[in-house]
């Protein structure tokens, strides 16, 4: 963590600057400290601060409340459900979001349906932390974001953190919620710094305008928030004033904030590190289209290219992941269309 002085730009008085990784750790630390029902479990979470070092010091501080599991995603997610219905508030770490499908049954048929099929007798306050994203040269089975995989499922809520503040606030909100929530973190963001207000809790379903602008709305999640902000800088130099929204929640979607922004700018770009089809970008565009939100030009998407898998060679991977340049180009094309 750094002092306030290091921070570029405005910052709330009670904020401190920390890395996204520190924000994740702080959120869990504060939640574990606040409520003895909070637990953390997952593969190697108690060893050396976890594989991505997001849990530094937690095992030492909270002892048996930080639980190493065997490798069995479906099983340990089911265990978390069992703990939750008996009054605990487990946080489950998925070392890679790519392993979420290994727990497909727990995530589709159990966590989101358990309250309903018990007629409201049982609550499932489980938080899933999914460490996601490409760019690590990990190849096609270790680079997914998976933000949209479970977003359609009523009973489940799905968030994605684009900044240290979001990482902290979304995790706190997820842990406090009496329903299951998946929170996506992006592995390339762990080293990024930003202001974080300890104790702040995200409002469920509320997006965050990270940069106000008047010419074009760019909606992004995870790493794409950073890239959208970079694109906005480039565009600003060209006289284009982009508004950048960190969507924060893909379920529920903050249609209101996006529609209001598009109402002002008349132009929409969605920037996502996933394929367009069946994604939150498509969902957003569809909902806006059905709502008849007027746009000056058709919306555009910057997504993983269609019918392409994440390839291992660095150059290919970099070309596949949406870049700030592609986002800027889409915004430019939107303006000039």
């Amino acid at each position, binding site marked *: 963590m750094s002092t306030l002085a290091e921070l570029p730009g405005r910052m709330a008085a009670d904020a401190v600057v920390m890395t996204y990784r520190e924000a994740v750790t702080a959120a869990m630390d504060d939640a574990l400290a606040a409520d003895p029902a909070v637990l953390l479990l997952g593969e190697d979470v108690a060893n050396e601060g976890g594989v991505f070092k997001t849990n530094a010091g937690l095992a030492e501080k909270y002892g048996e409340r930080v639980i190493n599991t*065997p490798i069995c995603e479906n099983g340990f997610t*089911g*265990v978390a459900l069992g703990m939750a219905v*008996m009054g605990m508030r487990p946080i489950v770490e998925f070392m890679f979001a790519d392993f979420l499908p290994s727990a497909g049954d727990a995530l589709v048929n159990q966590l989101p349906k358990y309250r*309903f*099929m*018990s*007629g409201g*007798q049982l609550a499932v306050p489980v938080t899933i932390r999914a460490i996601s994203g490409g760019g690590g040269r990990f190849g096609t089975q270790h680079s997914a974001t998976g933000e949209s995989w479970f977003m359609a499922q009523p009973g489940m809520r799905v968030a994605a953190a684009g900044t240290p503040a979001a990482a902290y606030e979304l995790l706190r909100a997820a842990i406090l919620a009496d329903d299951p929530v998946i929170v996506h973190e992006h592995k390339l963001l762990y080293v990024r710094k930003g202001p974080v207000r300890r104790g702040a809790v995200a409002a469920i379903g509320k997006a965050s305008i990270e940069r106000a602008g008047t010419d074009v709305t760019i909606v992004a999640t995870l790493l794409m928030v950073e890239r959208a902000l970079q694109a906005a800088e480039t565009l600003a130099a060209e006289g284009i004033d982009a508004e950048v929204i960190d969507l924060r929640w893909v379920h529920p979607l903050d249609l209101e904030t996006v529609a209001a922004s598009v109402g002002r700018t008349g132009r929409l770009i969605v920037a996502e590190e996933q394929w367009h089809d069946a994604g939150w970008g498509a969902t957003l565009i569809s909902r806006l289209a059905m709502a008849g939100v007027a746009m000056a030009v058709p919306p555009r998407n910057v997504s993983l290219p269609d019918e392409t898998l994440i390839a291992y060679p660095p150059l290919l991977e970099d070309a596949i992941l949406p870049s700030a340049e592609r986002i800027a180009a889409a915004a430019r094309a939107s303006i000039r269309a």
Partner: protein
Amino acid sequence: MSETDERRLAWYRRMLLIRVFEDKVQQLFMSGRIEGTTHLCQGQEAVSVGAIAAMGPQDVQTNTYRGHGEALALGMTPEVAMAELMGRSTGGSKGLGGSMHLIDTARGNIGANAIVGAGLPIAVGAAMAFKLRREPRVALTFVGDGATNIGTFHESLNMAAVWQAPVVFIVVNNLYGEYSPVRMTTPIDDLARRAEPYAMPGVIVDGQDVEAVHAATWEAVARARSGAGPSLLEMKTYRYRGHSRSDPAKYRPDGELEAWKARDPLVVLGTRLADEGLLPLEAQAALEADVTAEVEAAVARAESAPYLSMEEARRHVYAG
């Protein structure tokens, strides 16, 4: 009468209630008075009643779509159970769950799952909650023979063993999955052997004898409560009906059903109680009439209850 004998009489009555209840459910589904499908447990009553009787008041269990027996054994009233099967708001899950989901948190029934194997890790998780909070509580989980082939079975037993979770795995070996006999999907006959790689006791139990079931489960529950870790109990039993409503169970070899009926759990205990003069055969018949009346009354009351409205139903998707 000794306390033990009182308990045995209560077990007989509870098994009889389950039998009569399931027969009635069968009739209601076959006649179309209830739509959809149901998974009946006639023949397996001793497992439900004997194992549940070994639970303490704070203990919990998970079971499956074939879970009417456990639900009633835990004390859910036939009316509440029947209302759930009829989708009525007076059902255990307000009618939202249905036949595969008789859940009753107040009585320790924290889940009836329609996904094979999904109830196991939930029980392990419940047990770990108890262990972490230093509560002397135990979780049980009922699971079929076919379910021992799915990954979550293995994952659950493994976690329970590593963590020494206070949980008891009850494998209800009724010889069939849906239409598959055990040896078509499983390389061994005695599923108690599945405990071996977890360094966990694996015990074969006569699932037709409620007293044997109770004794074995009692021991496993005591072991778990004492901190000595999980156990697996294999209950050898049989389901009289097909897998579900639409299954006439033609795949069964001739005579198999009859052979098992000769050791019907009601006959096994009933004969003992009659021989000991505790419950003569005429008293058994009277009891059956009683229970039948109780179930018929439950059906009538359940059927007159309302359904939830859509708006009410939707309130149970999220906490709010």
